[in-house]
């Protein structure tokens, strides 16, 4: 117990304290100015906005994958199942370089998109693709076991009562998996907000347009602006952690209601 707390203190609390204290050498108004400066605000908006959209898009994608993997038997299912975790296991820098190679205008998929006048790499769309990539396993893995557990009897009862496939999906399955879906989406969101390695290569890094918040921290650091870097870092931790707490509360609420 004591050791646990000491380890926790050394590894998490102490560094966080450093992060939490450092920005205030700018003063309260200094920190506020730092965070509301157009470039910082734009980067924060981009990071959180795109992460939220990517996490939301991951919900139907993850649902699709989890549904297919649990409900259908088809050749290659187990391979597909195993590969879902790949974005998690693949080092982010490697993923970033590979995604850029594929979605650059001269890459295999980037060229296809370019024909339709869509710019993928070096645009917000490129960041979006990278964020979907890293978030996907979180959603699939969160709902997959629950989907497997959803009682077949309940579904069959619904069928007996004359519910069609769509009704069953919407009224029986969806409520059951809602809490874990939310939890998966929120994890994907938290991961996406902080993501650095896989995004910097594909982002284009244009100030105000495709510059993500973690990159801005790195840039501030390189300008010896430690307090500014810590301020942005602290704001990111605060916002994404706050979001996680709120989402967890919603999820617990939903889970509680589901049980009743």
């Amino acid at each position, binding site marked *: 117990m004591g050791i646990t707390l000491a380890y926790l203190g050394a590894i998490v609390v102490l560094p966080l304290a450093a992060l939490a204290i450092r920005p205030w050498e700018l003063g309260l108004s200094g920190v506020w100015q730092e965070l509301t400066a157009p470039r910082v605000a734009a980067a924060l908006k981009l990071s959180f906005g795109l992460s939220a959209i990517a996490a939301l898009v991951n919900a139907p994608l993850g649902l699709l994958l989890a549904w297919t993997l649990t409900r259908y038997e088809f050749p290659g299912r187990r391979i597909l199942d195993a590969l879902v975790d790949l974005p998690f296991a693949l080092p982010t820098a490697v993923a970033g370089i590979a995604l850029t190679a594929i979605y650059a205008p001269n890459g295999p998929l980037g060229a296809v998109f370019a024909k339709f006048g869509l710019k993928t790499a070096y645009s917000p769309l490129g960041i979006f693709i990278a964020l979907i990539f890293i978030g996907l396993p979180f959603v699939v893995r969160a709902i997959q076991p629950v989907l497997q557990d959803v009682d077949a009897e309940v579904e069959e009862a619904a069928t007996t009562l004359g519910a069609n496939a769509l009704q069953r999906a919407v009224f029986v399955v969806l409520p059951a998996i809602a809490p874990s879906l939310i939890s998966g989406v929120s994890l994907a969101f938290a991961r996406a907000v902080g993501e650095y390695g896989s995004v910097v290569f594909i982002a284009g*890094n244009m100030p105000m347009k495709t510059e993500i918040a973690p990159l801005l921290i790195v840039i501030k650091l390189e300008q010896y602006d430690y307090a500014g870097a810590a301020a942005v870092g602290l704001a990111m931790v605060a916002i994404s952690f706050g979001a996680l707490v709120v989402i967890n509360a919603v999820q617990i609420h939903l889970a509680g209601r589901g049980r009743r």
Partner: protein
Amino acid sequence: MTHSHITRRGLVGAGAALGAAAATAPLLAGQAFAEDKSLTLLNVSYDPTRELYKEINAAYAAYWKGKTGQVIRIDQSHGGSGKQARSVIDGLQADVVTLALAADIDEISARAKLLPANWQSRLPNNSTPYTSTIVFLVRKGNPWKIKDWPDLVKPGVGVITANPKTSGGARWAYLAAYSYGLKTGGPAAAKDYITKLFKNVPVLDTGARGSTTTFAQRRIGDVLLSWENEAYLTIDEFGPNFDIIYPSSSILAEPPVALVDKNVDRHKTRTLAEGYLNFLYSPLAQDIIAKHHFRPRNAVAAAKYTANFKQIPLVTVDDTFGGWKKAQATHFADGGLFDQIYKPT
């Protein structure tokens, strides 16, 4: 339950593997740090000098062995100039720094007090054993007919350069472009020009190497603002699909070198490190420098490779921008001119 026996063994095996790994850990660590510190140098440098210092380090090691009989090792760290300076300030144990611009070494002196403020006067030629400049790299045949700075702001031309806030080379490129703007009509025209120029930039990488990859490997953009040596290196590495264009004027880039006094005293490497920096000015090193398309200070080397270095008018930071301190504050500091380019309109 038949496999419970096997699985337990598996767990023990995993535990043993971890134990073995933990046991070898000190051995591995020991191996990395057992060598004599006083015979090891760490040169912290910027991006485009990787190939150069690889060759210079080998030459210096041979020279030192011939002189003293000692076998030395020189470690290299490369990255964006600002990032490297930041690492040294945060405690990276550099014996010598060889960065892209004087402002970054000034920061090390001012913030970490690792070397005196007058560091630049300690070695010949403002402590810059070689110079370079910024040129244009275009695709073979120059389809956009890019000849000079005004061609870069034409509509539709894609200009590739790195972020001046993080890349030393991009800072030189920015100043070169700005100095052209100044010539056409003072600060207002320069600001207008540089704004238009960056409107044509589709990707802003964090380092010069990143922007070269974007231009050459990903085939984005029509012209790359490049270090002169990087332009030649690109042709060596990516094949002859490119042409080098010298604009009507550019900037005299002076990448300085310096001894990090506090670190060499701690490592007892002062003699070795001083020898290393002086070696950069020797005819042998100057020849290597010129071979790698950096402009040498030594007249013999310059004459030997004269065909490689086209003479164009070059402005200096001191004359045109009032020194690095002023240039840094006006253009690249937070809220400076570069930030204003990206102000939403």
